[in-house]
């Protein structure tokens, strides 16, 4: 499987609900980053979590990292229609996962 593989591939929720996306990776990391890509736009950096951190918050975003399981999760709370985008995790070897396509319905 791919380095930085996201799960699920696609997620559809109602506005106001929480969205959780998971990412698994294979090799050791120094950090993991999450990016978002809105349709027709470039990638926007969301959050970076270092290998010695277990959880990090930024606004409505919460990222967790479990190095023993080589996995990370991105939680978006109180989702909004504007959160509709593809979300990618990226390891420190610049390898991207396939991404999770999130659709938030108004």
């Amino acid at each position: 499987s791919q380095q930085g593989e996201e799960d699920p591939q696609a997620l559809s929720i109602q506005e106001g609900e929480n969205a959780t996306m998971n990412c698994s990776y294979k090799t050791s990391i120094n950090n993991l980053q999450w990016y978002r890509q809105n349709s027709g736009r470039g990638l926007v950096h969301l959050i970076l979590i270092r290998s010695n951190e277990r959880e990090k918050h930024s606004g409505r975003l919460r990222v967790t990292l479990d190095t023993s399981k080589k996995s990370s999760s991105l939680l978006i709370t109180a989702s909004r229609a504007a959160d509709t985008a593809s979300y990618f995790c990226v390891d420190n070897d610049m390898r991207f996962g396939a991404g999770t396509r999130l659709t938030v319905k108004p």
Partner: protein
Amino acid sequence: EAGVTQFPSHSVIEKGQTVTLRCDPISGHDNLYWYRRVMGKEIKFLLHFVKESKQDESGMPNNRFLAERTGGTYSTLKVQPAELEDSGVYFCASSLRAGWVYNEQFFGPGTRLTVL
């Protein structure tokens, strides 16, 4: 401050033709990266410039791809001759410092390339 810009935003060409993509990084960013996302697949690293020098071009798929960064400012990525499997979105990114470890890369909007 202007972000990373890419030109064109879309390009539709026929197989065998040549296409040149351009990326203008954020002013002052010595590091410039090219990535591409082939339809339905993950984003893959192509290469990394530090100023005008190619620091890492391990991701370049084959010799039909040529990247340049004359003068260490903007960069071009030429595909010649283009093949059907080259279709996808090509992203450019720049960063102030090298490396991915604790350094954020700023991405451009991408160029969508369609090869017919």
